[in-house]
């Protein structure tokens, strides 16, 4: 009996509960949310396998060196948490191409993979230049009323909305 996929929880509820997790992690561990620094650490770790001297000599890796810290474990936890949630409510499904992408750019997994890869490069370069991603600037900095958080979150959405409009121009509206 295949049912249409369950709709999950209200985003307001799931979001507010996430807010409580943010408060708890500030209280218990003194840590604020973030995700993109962990990509720097993992990237440094991979490069270290090939040229440890080079990684040791780079300023950026001296600050965000290859090590497993609170945030790396948090990002690992996100994979596990999303897996548990989707497996237990039946929303887990192996998909190589998202529906909306397929409706505009076709069903090719290779094409989707190539663009996801390129988009990922640009996104992370921007995140590190800005100093963080939506987790760090939204859920970490805006929560603490940082000026940086407000500027960056506005730019994330402004950039995303403008470029999404350009990319999807001429496509089906839904």
């Amino acid at each position, binding site marked *: 009996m295949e049912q249409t996929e369950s709709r999950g929880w209200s985003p307001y509820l799931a979001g507010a509960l996430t807010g409580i997790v943010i408060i708890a992690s500030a209280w218990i561990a003194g840590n604020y949310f973030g995700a993109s620094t962990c990509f720097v650490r993992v990237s440094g770790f991979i490069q270290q396998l090939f040229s440890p001297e080079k990684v040791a000599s780079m300023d950026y890796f001296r600050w965000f060196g290859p090590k497993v810290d609170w945030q790396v474990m948090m990002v690992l936890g996100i994979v596990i948490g999303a897996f548990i949630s989707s497996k237990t409510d039946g929303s887990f499904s192996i998909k190589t191409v998202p529906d909306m992408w397929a409706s505009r750019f076709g069903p090719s997994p290779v094409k989707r993979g190539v663009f996801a890869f390129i988009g990922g490069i640009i996104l992370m370069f921007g995140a590190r230049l800005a100093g963080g991603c939506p987790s760090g600037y939204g859920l970490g900095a805006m929560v603490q009323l940082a000026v940086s958080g407000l*500027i960056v979150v506005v730019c994330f959405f402004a950039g995303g909305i403008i470029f999404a409009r350009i990319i999807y121009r001429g496509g089906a509206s839904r």
Partner: protein
Amino acid sequence: MSTLINGLITGILFGFLLQKGRVVRYDKQMGALRLMDMTIVKFFFSAILTGMVGVAVLHNLGIAKPLILPTNIGANIIGGLMFGLGWSIVGYCPGTSVGALGEGRTDAFWGILGMLVGAALFAEIFPIMSRTVLMWGREGSITLPQILGLNNWIVIVLFVTMGLGLFVFLEKKGL
């Protein structure tokens, strides 16, 4: 060690809630950027507004120390817009990309690989950036209450009011 376990548990809860809110998917992320489905905006700002109130209490009571990311206006704006460009192509942000992988979206894997390459490229070019873009408009670790000269609770009330107004607007529009 306990810090690492705390991080893992925090991540599991965060990933669980991201997935329950259905915000880790490409269709939801792009739905927001295309102004068609504001699920992620509702989730994101519900989390921020709730966190804002609780964290302010912790700061006021001295239970948790603030950790304010510095404002570097040039890098914040250029990096933020560049992130927006990449985001509109990959359709996942760093936190949701790993969540999408957890619910079986394998295209997120290529996005994550790209993000690792992007991090490596930035590390390479960082010496140049630190002499140029990162020097433009360095304001340090400033907060909105500081620059506005207002009590932090007034700023929080303003944010919560605007946030609730946004939610009402989105529901009225059926987004």
